[in-house]
């Protein structure tokens, strides 16, 4: 029986790349089917896709097949290189983000002590892709969409980062595995029945993080960059066929990966209470536990998305700067005081 430790680096990395592809693409497909095809349909009293495969479960494959056959149109005025490169940058940022997400005690892509800090850093790469798409298209709708996206993402990155600080204070580490173990082995005022899921002790952080995440994913009510009634589809207006589908996949893949990061930070990641956190069992059920938590958290995201109308641009900035950032700063101080006092 070989163990992971005996594999060469390239062998381990191949396994991890396969796992990473599954973690990005399969999860994105699952979220599209569950949330976009079915959840929204049920909320609107309709069935959604039913023809392709059982209960329409193969609809997404049919869509990919359709998009593969669509003509690839480069607008005449577009900056061809920037226009073509934008979807690459957007999807690359998703893959850079997924590396920090652990699926079990030994099932990780990167076990890096910078962990969540690295995730925060690479997650902002996607905004460059969005701005490239907006600028490169040479279309007024696209440019406005790209600029709106940039303004929104820089406003909500701060509450996102500051909300994480509370978790880091409690866990005492930025390592994602360390954060999971801190929740598994923790206790709330001496009671360790559930461990210490930071959802309970960092609920302010969770609240701020989920709102900021909604904005970072540009989902309604924060979808001004693609506001279809004002800007057609914003920065994606000029994209057709596969290139458009890449943005679409990127949107849902990023929703999945961000939910996974939130699951690690606040719901205990691959850990479920009642089992030993070092148990080998978690290498098998851990990814499934993560999937369950990701589906739950992304359900919240899409529930909000399908429920609330869009903000105005000034309301959006006001919410970030005058509400979320002060709350997040107070949360840091409060968490620090509690940590030192107890």
């Amino acid at each position: 029986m070989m163990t992971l430790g005996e594999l060469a680096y390239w062998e381990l990395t191949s396994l991890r790349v396969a796992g990473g592809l599954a973690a990005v693409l399969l999860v994105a497909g699952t979220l599209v089917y569950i949330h976009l095809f079915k959840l929204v349909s049920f909320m609107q009293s309709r069935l959604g896709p039913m023809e392709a495969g059982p209960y329409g479960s193969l609809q997404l494959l049919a869509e990919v097949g359709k998009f593969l056959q669509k003509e690839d149109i480069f607008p005449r005025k577009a900056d061809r290189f920037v226009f073509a490169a934008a979807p690459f940058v957007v999807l690359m940022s998703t893959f850079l983000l997924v590396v920090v997400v652990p699926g079990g005690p030994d099932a990780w892509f990167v076990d890096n002590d910078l962990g969540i800090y690295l995730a925060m850093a690479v997650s902002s790469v996607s905004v460059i892709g969005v701005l490239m798409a907006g600028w490169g298209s040479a279309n007024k709708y696209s440019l406005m969409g790209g600029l709106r996206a940039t303004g929104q993402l820089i406003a909500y990155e701060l509450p996102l980062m500051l909300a994480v600080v509370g978790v880091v204070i409690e866990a005492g580490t930025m390592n994602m595995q360390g954060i999971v173990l801190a929740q598994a082995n923790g206790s709330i005022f001496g009671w360790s029945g559930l461990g210490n899921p930071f959802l309970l002790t960092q609920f302010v952080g969770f609240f701020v993080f989920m709102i900021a995440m909604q904005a970072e994913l540009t989902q309604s009510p924060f979808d001004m960059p693609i506001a279809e009634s004002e800007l057609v589809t914003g920065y994606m207006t000029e994209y057709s066929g596969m290139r458009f589908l890449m943005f679409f996949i990127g949107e849902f893949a990023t929703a999945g990966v961000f939910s996974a990061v939130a699951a690690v930070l606040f719901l205990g990641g691959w850990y479920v209470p009642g089992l030993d956190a070092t148990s080998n069992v978690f290498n098998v059920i851990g990814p499934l536990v993560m999937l369950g938590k990701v589906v739950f958290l992304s359900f919240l995201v899409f529930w909000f998305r399908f429920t609330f109308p869009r903000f105005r641009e000034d309301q959006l900035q006001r919410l970030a700067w005058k509400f979320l950032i002060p709350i997040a700063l107070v949360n840091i101080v409060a968490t620090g005081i509690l940590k030192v006092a107890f």
Partner: protein
Amino acid sequence: MSEFLRSYLTVAIFGLVGLALVGAFLGLGRILRPDHPTPQKLESYESGVDPTGDTWSQANIRYYIFALLFVIFDVEAVFIFPWAIRLDAYGAFGLIEMGIFIFILLLGLIYAWRKGVLRWA
């Protein structure tokens, strides 16, 4: 190579896999898709009417001050994260130090607020 550097190599490999995936999808599409460009098709889309003027003109992006504030607060995160990890070791001393730091930051935010720059101009 040390484990530390190795982990960044893995990060870089994942980035390349992301690029390769997009390349593979687009390459597959190139085999299957038609290519019939016409002058009308390549025109910029402006809701069906002929596009007017040039897109790349000067525009007021309206969040210059927000971007400046963002840079200030983002740099502050660099100081807060290392402190957050080692809070156990610093104890009350570190807490008061960081309390002063965050208080000054909050003062800055309140100043910007009172000056009215947080209003969407």
